[in-house]
């Protein structure tokens, strides 16, 4: 059993350094610190529980075996996210039996995205739902996005990576990240509109 260190709170960089020097506890603490966010990420990308669990485990095993290659002047968490995204996409491709699932831009037929439903949500529209129900609404909305938009949205607005970190993690240009994020956000807004529009009951 790997238990977190309790003496004082070390930042990721210090823990990585200790782990590289042979500390099992330090690596265990890095896992404990990030496992739930990585699991959320693998769940949202794969949209499959079993694949998400496998991708989670693979991510940390790979991070462990590649630790010596990790450049200590970069962000451990961003590096971890990059591994997790790759593991998740591999699972997604396998599951779909389709090597074409990629982060390439989906075909765009329209010039841009035109919002169809616009309605006022009032303040704190999410509070009309119980937490479990809200989570389900949000999960369903994210899962309905095409993979290239979904991954950008997860990294930017759920994992809260910067635009540059997201671009780096996904091997995309900053402008590609920005344009996908705009479309992802607008599509999600549209999907949530029917749940949150003022005066409307959920359906």
């Amino acid at each position, binding site marked *: 059993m790997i238990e977190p260190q309790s003496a004082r709170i070390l930042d990721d960089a210090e823990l990585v350094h200790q782990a*590289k020097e042979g*500390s099992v506890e330090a*690596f265990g603490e890095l896992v404990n610190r990030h496992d*739930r966010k990585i699991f959320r990420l693998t769940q949202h990308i794969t949209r499959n529980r079993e694949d998400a669990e496998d991708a*989670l*485990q693979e991510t940390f*095993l790979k991070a462990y075996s590649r630790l010596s290659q990790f450049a200590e002047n970069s962000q451990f968490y961003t590096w971890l996210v990059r591994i997790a995204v790759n593991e998740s996409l591999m699972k997604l491709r396998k599951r779909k039996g389709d090597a074409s699932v990629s982060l390439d831009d989906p075909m765009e037929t329209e010039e841009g995205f035109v919002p169809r439903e616009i309605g006022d*949500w009032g303040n704190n529209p999410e509070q009309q739902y119980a937490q479990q129900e809200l989570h389900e609404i949000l999960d369903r909305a994210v899962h309905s996005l095409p993979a290239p938009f979904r991954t950008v949205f997860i990294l930017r607005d759920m994992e809260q990576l910067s*635009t540059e970190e997201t671009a780096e993690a996904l091997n995309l240009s900053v402008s590609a990240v*920005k344009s996908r994020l705009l479309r992802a956000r607008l599509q999600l807004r549209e999907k949530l509109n029917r749940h949150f529009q003022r005066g409307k009951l959920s359906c």
Partner: protein
Amino acid sequence: MLTCSEVLAELSNYLDNEVSAELRQGLEEHLKDCPNCWVLFDTTRKTIQIFRGTEPYPLPEGLHDKLQEALRKRMEQDPPGQN
């Protein structure tokens, strides 16, 4: 005056504070006078806030143990700091 589609194209950058001062001013003028764009802006902002406000669940007990066990095995096989 910016058009509604120009505003839409910059909405995400505006929310992320990634626009020039000049563009910001143009956007804010439009949003003040265009109720449709304002609601779109406001509901998109709320969409982001709602997602940002959700915390990931802790790992289910069984999964947590499975992960720790897999790591423990790997570390035994291949102790850290050996490569």
